[in-house]
């Protein structure tokens, strides 16, 4: 059994049907979809039981019908993408920066770009956007059009 | 202090500085410089315009009804994707790299040569 399969099996036996989907795309690439309720537990499990310490980044995706928060973990060369599903009605997810401190900036970025509330994050101020950025305008959301974004920023400034 | 020896040796070497506007270095053979569009070969398919990452190429209507790309030098990033995308190989990269100009109009290359 390869290491990839082992990781998937361990997660499945721990969380059962809360793991919505697990796919090994190719060697060293694992995509796992989990329910929001076990998102943080799964990451804690990854850290304590398997030994994952490195988070490469957290990719936020606005998948029209829902948000996805995808931390990409790196473990012995394997990229583990652990997708947490976030419904649009209540965009919030637990912080993981207390489990893996390296996720601090990435969570801030997800927050300011998608407006997903990161519960328990110590500092959700702007990371990259300027101070006078319009409140409630989250640039990477799909319903924010590029032209509209441009108009709104310039309007705000004049 | 190994740097002392090195420094003294360098003091008597030829300078490494290239006095640019007065001395020029040859550019290599396949250098990606200013685009050259052969408007006789061009069929106006617009693939180059579609692939250009910086909108340096723009399709314009010619008097004879054909569409040909107009080339904005100042926007060009010299990636040569258009040269690659062109099905008729009408676009070539030339080794011309001194493209700064005082004249804004000089940075736009209008399509021509379609009447032939």
């Amino acid at each position: 059994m390869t290491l990839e399969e082992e990781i998937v099996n361990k997660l499945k036996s721990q969380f059962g049907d809360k793991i919505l989907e697990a796919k090994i795309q190719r060697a060293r690439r694992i995509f796992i979809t989990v329910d929001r309720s076990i998102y943080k537990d799964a990451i804690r499990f990854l850290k304590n039981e398997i030994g994952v310490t490195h988070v490469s980044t957290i990719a936020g995706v606005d998948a029209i019908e829902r948000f996805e928060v995808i931390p990409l973990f790196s473990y012995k060369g394997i990229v583990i993408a652990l997708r947490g599903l976030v419904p649009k009605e209540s965009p919030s997810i637990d912080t993981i920066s207390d489990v893996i401190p390296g996720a601090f900036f990435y969570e801030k970025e997800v927050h300011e770009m998608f407006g997903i509330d990161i519960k328990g994050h110590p500092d959700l101020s702007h990371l990259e956007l300027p101070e006078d950025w319009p409140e409630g305008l989250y640039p990477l959301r799909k319903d924010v059009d590029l032209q509209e974004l441009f108009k709104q920023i310039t309007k705000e400034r004049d | 202090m190994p740097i002392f020896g090195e420094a003294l040796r360098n003091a008597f070497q030829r300078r490494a500085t290239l006095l640019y506007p007065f001395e020029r270095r040859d550019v290599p053979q396949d250098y990606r410089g200013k685009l050259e569009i052969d408007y006789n070969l061009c069929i106006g398919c617009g693939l180059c315009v579609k692939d250009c990452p910086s909108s340096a190429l723009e399709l314009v209507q010619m008097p004879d009804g054909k569409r040909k790309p107009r080339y904005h030098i100042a926007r060009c990033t010299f990636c040569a994707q258009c040269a690659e995308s062109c099905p008729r190989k009408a676009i070539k990269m030339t080794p011309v790299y001194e493209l700064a100009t005082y004249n804004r109009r000089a940075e736009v290359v209008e399509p021509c040569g379609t009447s032939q």
Partner: protein
Amino acid sequence: MIQEVIDILKILIFPGFFFFSLLGLIFEWIDRKFYARLQNRVGPLYTGPRGFFQPFADFVKLMAKEDVVPEGAEKPIFSSIPVFALALSLFAVLFLPVYGTQGILSFEGDIIVLMAIMTLFVVLVFLGGLSSASRYSEVGAERSILQLLGYEIPLVASVLGAAAITIHTGGSLSIKGIVEAQSGWWSILGIQALGFAIFLLAAQAELERVPFDIPEAETEIVAGWMTEYSGKKLALLRLARDIELAFLCGLGATLFLGGPQPVLPGILGAVVSTILFVVKSVIVLLILTAIRAAMSRLRIDQMVNFAWKYLMPLSILQLFLAVLLPHIITL
């Protein structure tokens, strides 16, 4: 009457203010050019033959630039510092012998006055930095004083070591005495090598050049105490710096390399002596530039540490040597 006019001309033109201003700018050019050559670059190139007029051009350009005084600055102090700095450095050069054994100003104990002037430079730097109301300037000012604590005593000791060779000619604390004492024997560098080395390092610190450019460390605190100076003020400050450079090179040449020894009598002799003086100063300058090229900037704590741990004992050692060795040789 004629004597007075000659004296005034001496102070104003040669070998006084004008000569040394010119020398300072030329020295800056030599410094930049040689530094560039050591780095395999060309340095100033286009202004004049081989960029010779670059320092002049820089001066003229800065004079024409807008002069900004920060809002929070102590204006009177801030504005007067460049003038004082220039005045002080021009005053200092009057002590240097250029074509004879003595400068325009010469009296017993003038070396002590020179030491005091060199310390005053740092006081000006400190005041200039502190009155700028900028954090960078403030840090730079603090650093300059800290640095002074490090190099001042070795500097004084090395100068006193140079004065010690006058013991067998009767003992003197004047530049005139030192130059005259060096006329007979050229072995001075043998005994004085250590003192000369210490003097060079201390001069480097006084001039705030690598490795001791700590008060104006570009990559750390922008331009240190000079950060807020601009326009005319900066031009004057830079001119003062250049004259100070020429002054310290000249002082090194005078104290340790024999200075302008009167080899021939008359006008011709004066010309030869002047050339001798300039050549010797340039030698000192080239050594200073080479030091600048071969080292990286130290940290302030390392600098002070280095000065007290090594420079200080060495300077005292060389003082002993300078006092004792002539006796041993002549025994």
